[in-house]
C-alpha cells in the first residue's frame, strides 16, 4: 500500500506549471526532476515547470520514496507514466477517450493524480470502438487530435472498426494500447492472455504509423513523431504501445529524459507549373465542374473553394466528406449526376474518383457505364496517392486522369485561385459571367423544387418523414450557433438549412462501419461545447444499438447535444439486397424482414436514454407532435444537458 506525503506546495503554482503546452522539457536526475528545455523549446513556456519532487508532493501521492523507505513494494523514483503524461501535455492534447484498462493503469493513474485529470481529461467510454469514434468526431470539429486509449489485445480488437473508419475518413486519432512485453515481469493469467508480441500487427493495414517504444526516451520521440505523422495530410490514425513496465517502473536515477521539440507540419501544396496548366484548362472550359470530398477542413479552406468556384462560375458538387461549400450558394450541387455535361472535372480530395465519373448498377449483368462525356478532362488534387496501403480496398477502383497533383487540396487552393485569376481573359470572363447567370436561374428553380419535393414526401404522414422533421427543426435552430454532428438524413438538411460555416457538418464515418454515428457525435459535441455551439445529432436507430453506452458518456461528462432518434425500426439499406437475391433466384419475396428489422419488440429510445441519465422524449409518431417535442428538447440542451427525442420515422 502506498502512503501519502505531506504537501506544502501551492497547488495553483503547480497547475500553472503543468499547463505549459508545447514546451520542450528535460526530465533528469535522481528524483526525475523536470527542467525547462533550452534550445529545443518549440513554443516559449509561460511558466517554469516545477520539479517532480514538488509536483508529487503537491498532489499528495507517493511516488518518490523517502530516505528511510525501504519498502520494495513502492515505486522507486518517479513513475515512468508521469513522464509519458508530460510528453502528452507537450502536444496540447485535451482529451483521452478510454474504457478502463489494467494494461494502461500506470498512465491512467498519472493522468488522474499527477495530471489532476486536466488537459488531458479522461472521458469514460463504454466500448473501445466508441472511444475511437469519439476521438474521430472530436478531431473533425476541434481540428486537433485526441487520444483513444485501449486495453491490450482485447481492447484494441474492440477498437478496430472505429480505427478503420478513422483511416478511411482521414482522421488522425492517436491510439494507445497497453501491453506487457516482458514475460518475466508480466502477470500470469488474463494479463498474459492480453499480451502480444506485436500489438499493432492486427491493425497495421489501416494505421499510418505505429511504434512499440522500449524506453521512456523512445516513447517521447515516438509519440511526438506519431503526432507529426498523423497531422501531416493525409491525416490518419497512429498507434503507440504503452509497455506496462515502462509505465509502472520508476525512472532510474540520473536518467536524462528529454521531450523533443514539436512543430506543426506544413501540408504539401501543389506544384506551380502544374497549377498553371490546371488553371488554363478550367478557364477555357465551357462546363467546368468541381467535385470536393474531404477538402475543406477549416474556414479558410471553405472560403478558398468559394473563391475558386466564383472565379469560374463552376458548379461545386460537395460529396460531403467535409463541409466543403455553402449549401445555399447558387453554385452548390449534390450528387454525381452533375458531371455528365462537364468538359473539365476537377476532383479535390476524392476518395472515389472512379465512382464519381462512373455509374454501377447492381443487377445481374453488373452494368457499368461512364457518367462523363468522351474527351472530358479529369484533374485530381489530393493526398490519396501520397500514402496508401495495399490490403484494404478503401482506395477504390483506379481512375485514369489527365493531370494528377499529389498534394493537399486545401493547402493548394489559394495558389490555384491565383493561377486561375491570372489566366482569365476578357473574352473568357464574358463566358464565365453568362454561366453564372444560368446558375442563378437554376438555383431559384431548385428552391421551388425542394419545397415541392418536401410537400410531396409524405408531409402529413405518420410515421414522420425526413423532410418534415428537418423542416420543423430549422426555424427552431436557425438563429442559434448550431452544428449538425450526425448523419445528414437523406440530404434534407443540406437542401433546407443554411450551412455556411465549416464546422456545421463534418461528414460521415468514412468506412461505412455502423456504430460510428452516435459516439462520433458525442466527440464532436464535446468539441463544440467549448464554443457554446448547439450540437444536433440525427441518429440512426440501428447505429445507436451497436453501442448505446455513448449516451451514458454524454450524460456523465455533461456534453450537451440534441439527439433525434431516426427510429425507422430496421436496417433498411439491407432489405433491397435480399429482394435482389430473391428476384435473381426467383424465390419468395416476402421474407426480407428476417434479420433486417428492429421490431418485436420495438426499442423505446426515450426509456433507453432515461436509463442512462439522459432526458428521453417520445416516441413521437405524428408530425403534429414534433415541434413541441423539439422545443422541449432544445430547452434541455440549452441548459447544458444531452437529450434524446425518439421519433418514429419513414424508412429513409
Amino acid at each position, binding site marked *: 500500500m502506498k502512503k501519502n506525503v505531506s504537501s506544502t506546495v501551492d497547488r495553483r503554482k503547480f497547475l500553472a506549471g503543468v499547463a505549459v503546452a508545447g514546451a520542450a522539457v528535460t526530465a533528469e536526475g535522481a528524483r526525475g526532476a523536470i527542467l525547462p528545455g533550452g534550445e529545443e523549446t518549440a513554443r516559449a513556456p509561460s511558466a517554469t515547470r516545477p520539479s517532480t519532487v514538488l509536483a508529487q508532493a503537491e498532489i499528495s501521492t507517493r511516488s518518490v520514496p523517502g530516505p528511510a523507505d525501504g519498502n520494495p513494494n513502492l515505486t522507486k523514483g518517479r513513475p515512468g507514466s508521469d513522464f509519458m503524461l508530460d510528453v502528452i501535455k507537450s502536444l496540447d492534447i485535451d482529451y483521452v477517450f478510454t474504457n478502463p484498462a489494467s494494461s494502461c493503469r500506470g498512465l491512467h493513474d498519472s493522468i488522474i493524480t499527477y495530471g489532476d485529470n486536466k488537459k488531458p481529461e479522461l472521458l469514460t467510454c463504454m466500448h473501445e470502438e466508441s472511444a475511437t469514434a469519439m476521438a474521430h468526431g472530436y478531431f473533425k470539429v476541434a481540428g486537433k487530435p485526441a487520444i483513444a486509449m485501449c486495453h491490450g489485445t482485447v481492447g484494441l480488437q474492440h477498437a478496430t472498426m472505429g480505427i478503420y473508419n478513422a483511416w478511411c475518413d482521414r482522421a488522425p486519432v492517436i491510439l494507445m494500447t497497453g501491453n506487457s512485453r516482458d514475460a518475466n515481469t508480466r502477470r500470469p493469467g488474463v494479463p498474459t492472455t492480453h499480451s502480444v508480441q506485436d500489438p499493432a500487427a492486427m491493425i497495421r493495414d489501416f494505421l499510418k504509423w505505429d511504434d512499440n517504444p522500449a524506453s521512456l526516451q523512445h516513447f517521447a520521440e515516438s509519440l511526438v513523431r506519431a503526432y507529426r505523422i498523423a497531422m501531416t495530410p493525409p491525416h490518419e490514425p497512429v498507434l503507440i504501445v504503452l509497455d506496462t513496465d515502462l509505465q509502472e517502473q520508476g525512472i532510474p536515477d540520473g536518467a536524462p529524459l528529454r521531450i523533443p521539440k514539436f512543430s506543426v507540419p506544413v501540408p504539401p501544396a501543389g506544384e506551380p507549373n502544374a497549377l498553371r496548366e490546371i488553371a488554363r484548362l478550367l478557364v477555357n472550359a465551357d462546363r467546368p465542374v468541381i467535385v470536393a470530398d474531404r477538402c475543406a477542413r477549416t474556414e479558410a479552406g471553405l472560403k478558398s473553394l468559394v473563391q475558386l468556384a466564383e472565379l469560374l462560375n463552376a458548379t461545386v458538387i460537395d460529396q460531403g466528406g467535409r463541409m466543403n461549400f455553402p449549401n445555399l450558394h447558387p453554385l452548390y450541387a449534390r450528387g454525381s449526376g452533375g458531371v455528365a455535361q462537364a468538359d473539365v472535372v476537377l476532383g479535390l480530395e476524392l476518395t472515389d474518383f472512379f465512382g464519381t465519373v462512373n455509374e454501377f448498377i447492381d*443487377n445481374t449483368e453488373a452494368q457499368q457505364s461512364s457518367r462523363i462525356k468522351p474527351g472530358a478532362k479529369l484533374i485530381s488534387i489530393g493526398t490519396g496517392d501520397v500514402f496508401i496501403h495495399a490490403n484494404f480496398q478503401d482506395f477504390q477502383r483506379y481512375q485514369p486522369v489527365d493531370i494528377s497533383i499529389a498534394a493537399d487540396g486545401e493547402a493548394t487552393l489559394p495558389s490555384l485561385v491565383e493561377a486561375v485569376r491570372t489566366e482569365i481573359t476578357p473574352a473568357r470572363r464574358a463566358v464565365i459571367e453568362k454561366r453564372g447567370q444560368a446558375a442563378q436561374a437554376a438555383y431559384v428553380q431548385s*428552391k421551388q423544387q425542394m419545397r415541392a419535393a418536401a*410537400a410531396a414526401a409524405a408531409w402529413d*404522414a405518420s410515421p414522420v418523414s425526413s423532410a418534415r422533421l428537418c*423542416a420543423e427543426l430549422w*426555424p427552431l435552430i436557425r438563429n442559434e450557433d448550431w452544428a449538425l454532428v450526425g448523419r445528414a438524413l437523406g440530404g434534407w438538411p443540406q437542401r433546407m438549412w443554411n450551412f455556411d460555416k465549416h464546422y456545421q457538418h463534418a461528414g460521415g464515418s468514412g468506412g461505412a462501419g455502423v456504430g460510428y454515428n452516435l459516439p462520433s457525435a458525442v466527440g464532436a459535441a464535446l468539441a463544440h461545447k467549448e464554443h457554446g455551439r448547439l450540437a444536433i445529432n440525427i441518429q440512426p436507430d440501428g447505429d445507436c444499438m451497436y453501442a448505446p453506452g455513448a449516451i451514458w458518456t454524454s450524460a456523465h461528462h455533461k456534453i450537451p447535444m440534441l439527439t433525434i432518434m431516426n427510429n425507422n425500426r430496421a436496417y433498411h439499406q439491407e432489405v*433491397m439486397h435480399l*429482394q435482389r437475391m430473391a428476384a435473381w433466384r426467383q424465390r419468395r*419475396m416476402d421474407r426480407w424482414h428476417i434479420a433486417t428489422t428492429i421490431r418485436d419488440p420495438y426499442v423505446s429510445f426515450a426509456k433507453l436514454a432515461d436509463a442512462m441519465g439522459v432526458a428521453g422524449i417520445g416516441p413521437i409518431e405524428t408530425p403534429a407532435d414534433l415541434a413541441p417535442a423539439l422545443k422541449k428538447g432544445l430547452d434541455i440542451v440549452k441548459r447544458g444537458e444531452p437529450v434524446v427525442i425518439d421519433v418514429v420515422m419513414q424508412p429513409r
Partner: protein
Amino acid sequence: MTRFAMLSSILAGLFCSSATFAAQAPPPGDAERGKAAFLRYGCYTCHGYDAQGVPGRKLAPNPLAWPAFSSFVRTSPGEMPTFTPQVLPDQDLADIHAYLRSKPPTPNPATIPLLQELGR
C-alpha cells in the same frame, strides 16, 4: 437479354406504345389488399409507407399508368430488383397499383408556411 434489348423493351413499355397501353385499363385490384402487399413485399422500404419515394422513385399520388407501371416492375433496368410474376403475382401487383391510385393528392407547397422558411 442484352442490356440494349432490355432497355428498348422498357422504353417501349414506358413511352413508345403509350397510345396502345392507355387504352388498357388496369386489372381489378383492391387498395386495402394492395397496401398490405406493398408492406409485405417491402416496397415501402425504398418508396416510403405512402409511396412518396426517397430514395426510390415516387410512386404516388398519380402513379404511372398500368402498362408502364407493370412493365417497369417486371423488367426493371435500374437498381430496383426485377419482380417477376413468380415472386410477385399479377393479382398482388394489381392490388398494389390500386393502392397507389387511392393515395390522395399531395399538399400544395405554397400553402405550407413552414416550407417558405426553408432554403434561406
